[in-house]
């Protein structure tokens, strides 16, 4: 049924995060159309919107879970999946792609055993296939958090993961 990709990373929210969210929701729920700001606040705190967090919102705002899920899956600004601590973004722009970024992405998938858009079960690495990041001269290019790697080949992949472990 679902075309919605869901994470296998277990929820690891803290009591502190929950308190922060509930405090914010106490103000937000007085507004008209509280659901959008509530989801934005939750994503700010947790980085994504897992079921557990949507349940907190449902309790506080007295909105059904399905209604919340419908909104969370409608807007692309919301994510149901966590980001990795180390976010590897591989450019799929035209220049990078013809220079072999597809194979580079495949190599990352193979080593990390996750799909693009996922993160590893320990939450350490996240893998993203991005649109053109605007430095086609370095194609194929990728970023690891804020660090940029240019002219990457498949054989560099293992080393890049190691450097950022």
């Amino acid at each position, binding site marked *: *049924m*679902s*075309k*919605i990709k*869901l994470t296998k990373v277990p929820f690891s929210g803290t009591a502190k995060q929950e308190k922060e969210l509930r405090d914010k929701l106490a103000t937000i729920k007085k507004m008209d159309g509280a659901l959008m700001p509530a989801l934005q606040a939750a994503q700010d705190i947790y980085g994504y919107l897992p*079921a557990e967090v*949507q*349940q907190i919102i449902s309790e506080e705002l007295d909105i*059904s*879970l*399905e*209604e*919340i*899920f*419908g909104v969370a*899956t*409608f*807007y*692309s600004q919301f994510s149901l999946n966590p980001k990795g601590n180390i976010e590897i973004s591989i450019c799929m722009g035209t220049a990078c792609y013809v220079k072999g970024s597809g194979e580079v992405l495949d190599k990352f998938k193979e080593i990390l055993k996750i799909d693009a858009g996922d993160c590893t079960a320990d939450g350490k690495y996240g893998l993203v296939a991005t649109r053109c990041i605007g430095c086609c001269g370095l194609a194929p290019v990728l970023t690891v958090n804020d660090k940029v790697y240019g002219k990457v080949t498949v054989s560099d992949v293992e080393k890049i993961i190691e450097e950022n472990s």
Partner: protein
Amino acid sequence: MINLTINGKAISVPEGTTILEAARKAGINIPTLCYLKDINSIGACRVCVVEVKGARNLVASCVYPVSEGMEVITNSKRVIESRKTTVELILSDHEKKCLSCIRSQNCELQKLSKELGCDEEHYQGESNNFNLDLSTPYLVRDNNKCILCRRCVAACRDYQSVSVIGANSRGFDTHIGTFFNKDLDAVPCVACGQCINVCPTGALRERDEIDDVMDAINDPKKYVVMVSAPAVRVAIGEEFGYPVGTNTQGKMVAAMKALGADDVFDVNMTADLTIMEEGFEFLNRVKNGGVLPMLTSCSPAWIKFVEHFYPELIPNLSTCKSPQQMFGAVIKTYYAEKKGIDPKDMVVVSVMPCTAKKFEKGRPNQSAAGVPDIDYVLTTRELARMIKREGIMYRELEDKDFDTPLGIGSSAGLIFGTSGGVMEAALRTVREVLENKSFDKLDFKEVRGIEGIKEATYNIAGIDVKVAVASGLSNARKLMDKIKSGEADYHFIEIMSCPGGCVNGGGQPIRTAEERNTMNIPGLRAKAIYDTDKSAKLRKSHENPVVKELYENYFGEPNSHKAHEILHTKYQKREKV
């Protein structure tokens, strides 16, 4: 009043009227698809578009209010072409297995397509491919036939305040689903089936048990008993062309016999038995300071609703099994002993206006004889399909009576089929038992009717008994919140899950949006019930000779130990998520 013209015809309507409503008043029909009176008007499907002079684009008439001097055209070439394109685009991503579709010839999309002269293959491209949700024993969700009208979403959320289905994702990926797209059995769906009744296509339907029932009938080792609920007889005729609100009990019984059931009994009998058990349970609670208000327990979707959303009110629920389950239990204990048949060789098939009954039969504590009280549940629709499949000419059948000895039911049992009926039947009996005399005037009109919530106070034997009746779970929710906050001090509350009661149950014949616009369907079916009650000879549950015999020779007295073991049950808290 606002003055406007529609197709050149002048008309005056109150301010706030939509173009669609105004056109209907002017005798002009505008086709609709997502629109459903009182429940869904979101202007999403664009089938109801019309031309308004001065407006750049076509407007959706179901949501567009009239204004002074407005000139509306509902049937120009531009309008018709637009509707046709819209329907053809919907068809481009619709599983067009119309020949075998359960809703064939009763499908609003099929009808529109035919009327507009659509080519179902005009637009060809990618189509969605969804797995069926077969997780529950009562419902099939088939998104391949869904047209995203959201009528089911509105029914689940607004009629029932259950809200377990909604639109997920966006654009081409949009689909009706649940929280995290879980299976329906993993969310607090209450099984009421109202979503099926509002679906314009075959995307929602009951889990069919016809083949299992035919296998049992064809098995010579099985003794098959069929029982039918009060509300079935006033609706099944619709499947054979009778007008809404026709009681075809005699033909229905004849058809069940023609299908090959060994006995055909009337659930009105165990409705009477319910009145005895529930009535005495209520009296006991009043006398002994038990938990009040007492809540009725006949409606299985209501029970599931309480278990999910109001578990703290479980002690308020009557412990009585529903009339369906009581019947199965009586057949497999008392009747099996009397006939000398091993209950394991008996198959009890109940015909119900309800999908939640398919869930209820599998609940724990519903096996009085060590085997399930009820084996199969057919909805009114399934019984009609079965009759057609077996070549039985319903309209030609000679009327027959239910079988003896368990086929006698009072009309107090019959009125269980409509909202307020259980309350009225209980009041008829409780009053006579407490005041120890017989009354001629038996109508309790304050609890009748299709309003969502009804309240009344009756003085019975010097006590003011405060009662409330609600149908539709959003109304039930309002009452429960009042009880929880201490605002309400009722003694006895009847709840039916479906708006208007069982006459409008999730297993009843499906009427299109167009019919629902012009007819009060639950009201007409309820009228047939009250008309039958008015002229009935046996109108009080406690005077039912079968009920008397059951207490004299089997149960002893209402709420006896034996009655508790066979006729009562337990409930369980269920997750809200």
